[in-house]
């Protein structure tokens, strides 16, 4: 009987190796199927969902890339017009107005009969409005109103028409446009108080540019005082006084060259002082209107917040009216 080799494994160990090998063999198909199950096929809906996911996260650049990928892989998809519209919306949300307009034009040229026609005109109107092209924006909002069957979109378009008039400071038209919003609309709660507020916009404490200019002409700096620009008032007064004094002194001492140079500068300071006072009055009025409109807008929005009430937390709803 031969002695067992010192390097041969023990029988129990061989048995274990067999078992492990057999186990691996048995489990291998399942591992393979698991690998297959982690491989997914991207179809139209999955690609659109991915793009929508980026859009909802506010990553508009990535969303645009994914919508474009959708258009590349599924050019015959019935949702192509939707992807093009969402590209435009992404550009708009990213404040890229020209790109948004181009995207909508692509949509309209490829799908002139798309069911998103009303939405496309609306978005294009927003892009024009943001570029201060109010007439073009209004024309597009009007087309939206005519085309759409969605009452919410119709009211949104009407509200945007009103806001273009607000931007042009055409208060009467803005009030009329706001009042065309249906009282049953959810936007009515915004539109009607806004219209009422605009009726009071003439009552703001404005400064008269004419008075500012007149005061500045009488006494340099006085116009600035009137428009509440006190530092400017001091500078305007001192500069004019100094140059005027220097000018007079130079001419009295027959130093005509210095007098001439000082006169040149004094003309600048004096005319600049009047221009600055008038401009200051306009800036004052602009700020008054801007702050008023901002308050008007903020005051009629629903605000939600969380606060500590004793030992417990509370959710607050605030609606000013």
């Amino acid at each position, binding site marked *: 009987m031969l002695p067992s080799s010192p390097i041969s494994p023990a029988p129990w160990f061989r048995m274990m190796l067999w078992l492990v090998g057999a186990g691996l063999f048995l489990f291998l198909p399942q591992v393979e199927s698991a690998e297959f199950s982690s491989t997914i096929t991207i179809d139209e809906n999955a690609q659109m969902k991915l793009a929508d996911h980026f859009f909802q996260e506010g990553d508009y650049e990535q969303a645009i890339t994914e919508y474009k990928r959708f258009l590349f892989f599924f050019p015959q998809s019935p949702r192509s017009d939707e992807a093009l519209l969402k590209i435009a919306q992404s550009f708009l949300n990213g404040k890229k107005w020209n790109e948004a307009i181009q995207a909508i034009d692509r949509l309209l040229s490829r799908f002139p009969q798309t069911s998103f026609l009303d939405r496309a005109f609306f978005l294009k109107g927003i892009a024009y409005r943001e570029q201060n092209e109010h007439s073009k924006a209004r024309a597009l909002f009007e087309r939206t109103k005519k085309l759409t069957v969605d009452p919410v979109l119709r009211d949104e378009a009407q509200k945007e028409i009103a806001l273009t008039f607000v*931007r042009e*400071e055409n208060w009467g038209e803005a009030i009329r446009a706001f009042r065309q919003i249906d009282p049953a609309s959810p936007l009515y709660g915004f539109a009607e108080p806004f219209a009422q507020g605009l009726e009071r916009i003439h009552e703001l404490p404005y400064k008269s540019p004419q008075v500012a200019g007149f005061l500045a002409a009488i006494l340099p700096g006085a116009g600035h005082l009137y428009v509440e620009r006190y530092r*400017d008032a001091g500078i*305007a007064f001192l*500069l004019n006084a100094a140059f005027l004094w220097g000018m007079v002194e130079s001419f009295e001492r027959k130093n005509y060259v210095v007098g001439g140079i000082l006169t040149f500068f004094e003309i600048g300071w004096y005319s600049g*002082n009047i221009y600055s006072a008038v*401009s*200051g009055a306009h800036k004052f009025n*602009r700020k008054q209107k801007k702050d008023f409109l901002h308050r008007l807008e903020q005051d009629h929005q629903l605000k939600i917040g969380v606060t500590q009430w004793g030992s417990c937390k509370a959710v607050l709803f605030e609606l000013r009216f």
Partner: protein
Amino acid sequence: MAALIVISASGTGEVSAEASEEFREAPQGKAGAVSPEDPLETLAMGQRFGIAVVNFFIRTISQVDGDRCPCFPTCSDYARRAIRKHGLLIGFVMTFDRLMHEADEIHRVPRIPIFGVPRYYDPVENNDFWWYRPEGSTSMVHSTIKRGP
């Protein structure tokens, strides 16, 4: 607002979104049909003279005097822009206005980084908005109205 919008203004750097919303770069109209990038040859004789004087100031006096203007565009650049846009006479008046209104204006306009240096945004458009209507524009006002609920 975190987003920055870069506007091209003679390669002068970046402007915050707040600033750009407040004072949008107006398209150049009939009276100001000359953009800051146009060559001097397209300007009237008076405008070229005025800009030459400002350029002389920039190359000689300002080099010694140093950078004193806290605004963007700087006062001398503002003068060139105003002369280009509105001619020698109005540009001259607007330049003196700018030199005078700095003290209060810096408390009322947004601060923006220009090549890493914070400056107060006070372009020509902030001072001619009340009388200058760019061609094709229906509004002289650039107030910011956000969308409602």
